[in-house]
């Protein structure tokens, strides 16, 4: 067996370990081991690569490994759980950029080799890597900036936006043809990368906050596809396997997110969601029907309750209220009340965002219920407490065919005996429409900051 065979077998082992890693993630009990298997797979792949005869000097790659590991470890240890969406966006972007540079170096090699039988399929793969990688890179940076609330928080669009995107896409195809026709001319490759970067930024700029879960999942998929494309350039099987696993993962998450919002991917990426003509105004819906409440009143409700559900939304993350909510849940349980959390699939800014926040606050994961599981139980629930969620509990999605969110699956909290909404004001959610739930007979509004509200509520229940 030659050294090249050993390397190939090690790559195969790495690919298998990655598959086992994902398999481990199918259950919280096995997830930690899964993640460790994944990192073991990466170690095997790196060691195999270092054995490769193509590597002549180890200086720069060792320095790069040390710098990268230092930055990566620092990011991973320091990042607060509320900032997880930003971190994932940033890491996606880095992965995309790395693939762009890898293909760029390979284009230079092919160009220098100057042999007549340049395979056009390799160059097409290089162009694909440049395109997907650069879109991932700048798209992710824009997403990061939106999530970190640096720039472009509001959706940015301008006249001709779609036309410009189309022109840029055609331009990248033209540049790809130039790259293939002109013996891997590096100039063609880098122009393609620049155009594709602009395209990536323009694609993400118009996306608003609540659509972020879709975009993050999609960019996650792209970062995988870019790695797979780089695998075609290098004719490297482990890159192709891992890249397509990640590509598939991101696509599934994208699909789940779209379904949870009842919107097509096309609609999220190119459409603008807005209230339609004829939709009721906030005044019509709310006029005279809003009942405001206090912590003491809510405490009384809990005093006679047997089952309570808490619905967290992005507002909970903003208010950093997860630990206060944990104290509330423990207190209620100690009083013999059954407490569960209802998690809508698009609550937060990335898939699973709420679950991580509540896990950080030591809330057991089997207390968090998915929408389909908890919806049938609302009619037997005494008190539902909503913190920082709005559109995902808006009954218009069920009842009003003229509503822009009509058809979106929601948490049917209105079926509970009493609903308490913690909210700063009556301002609309991301969809920009009023929420008839707030005006419902069984709904009480508690106007306050999420965290302070929960702290006051805990104090009030202790005083009972």
């Amino acid at each position, binding site marked *: 067996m030659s050294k090249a065979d050993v390397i190939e077998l090690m790559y195969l082992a790495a690919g298998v370990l990655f*598959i086992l890693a*994902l398999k481990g993630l*199918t259950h919280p009990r096995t*997830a*930690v081991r899964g*993640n*460790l298997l*994944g*990192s073991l797979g*990466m170690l095997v792949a*790196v060691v195999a*690569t*270092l054995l*490769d005869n193509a*590597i002549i*000097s*180890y200086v*720069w790659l060792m320095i790069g490994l040390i*710098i*990268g590991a230092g930055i*990566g470890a620092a*990011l*991973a240890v320091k990042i607060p*759980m509320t900032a*997880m969406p930003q*971190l994932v966006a940033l*890491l996606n972007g*880095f992965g995309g*950029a*790395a693939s762009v*540079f890898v293909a760029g*170096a390979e284009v*230079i*090699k092919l160009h220098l080799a100057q042999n007549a039988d340049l*395979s056009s399929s390799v160059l097409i793969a290089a162009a694909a890597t440049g395109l997907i990688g650069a879109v991932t890179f700048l798209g992710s940076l824009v997403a990061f900036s939106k999530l970190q609330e640096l720039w472009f928080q509001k959706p940015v669009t301008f006249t001709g936006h779609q036309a410009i995107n189309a022109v840029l896409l055609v331009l990248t195809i033209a540049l790809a043809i130039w790259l293939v026709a002109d013996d891997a001319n590096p100039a063609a490759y880098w122009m393609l990368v620049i155009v594709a970067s602009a395209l990536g930024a323009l694609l993400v700029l118009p996306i608003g906050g609540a659509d972020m879960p879709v975009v993050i999942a999609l960019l996650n998929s792209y970062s995988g596809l*870019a*790695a797979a494309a780089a*695998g*075609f350039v*290098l004719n*490297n*099987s*482990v890159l*192709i*396997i891992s*890249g397509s*696993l*990640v590509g*598939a993962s*991101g696509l*599934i*998450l994208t699909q789940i997110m779209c379904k949870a919002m009842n919107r097509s991917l096309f609609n999220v990426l190119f459409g603008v969601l807005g209230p339609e003509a004829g939709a009721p105004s906030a005044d019509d819906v709310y006029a005279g029907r809003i009942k405001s409440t206090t912590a003491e009143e809510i405490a009384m409700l809990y005093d006679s309750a047997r089952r309570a559900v808490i619905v967290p939304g992005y507002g909970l993350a903003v208010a950093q209220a997860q630990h206060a909510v944990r104290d509330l849940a423990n207190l209620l349980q100690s009083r013999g009340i059954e407490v569960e959390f209802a*998690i809508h*699939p698009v609550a937060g800014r*990335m*898939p*699973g965002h709420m*679950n*991580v926040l509540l896990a950080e606050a030591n809330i057991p*994961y089997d207390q968090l219920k998915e929408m389909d599981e908890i919806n049938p139980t609302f009619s037997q629930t005494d008190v539902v407490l909503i913190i920082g969620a709005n559109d995902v509990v808006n009954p218009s999605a069920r009842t009003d065919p003229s509503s822009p969110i009509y058809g979106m699956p929601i948490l049917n909290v209105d079926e509970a005996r009493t609903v308490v909404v913690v909210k700063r004001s009556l301002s609309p959610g991301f969809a920009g429409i009023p929420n008839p739930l707030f005006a419902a007979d069984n709904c009480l509004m508690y106007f306050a900051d999420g965290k302070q509200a929960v702290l006051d509520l805990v104090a009030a229940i202790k005083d009972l």
Partner: protein
Amino acid sequence: MTLGLTIFVLALFVGFEIITKIPPTLHTPLMSGSNAISGITLVGALLAAGAQYSAFATFLGFLAVILATINVVGGFLVTHRMLGMFKRRD
């Protein structure tokens, strides 16, 4: 190339089969963990940084090694940190 395509399509199917079984509770760790796996482009980066086709290609490889390593180390570590927080009711 056709062999690569075969691997690509089969791996996509494996991915779809496994990932549809992952519960929503673990979707964020799935994203950060799969993100770390997509850092596999590190393999290509190491080859580019070590092969010395030209000074510029080495430089590109060097940058790619840094970025991909951040992706890999940051991704796996943060996933580990997150998963450590998921606990059952006791």
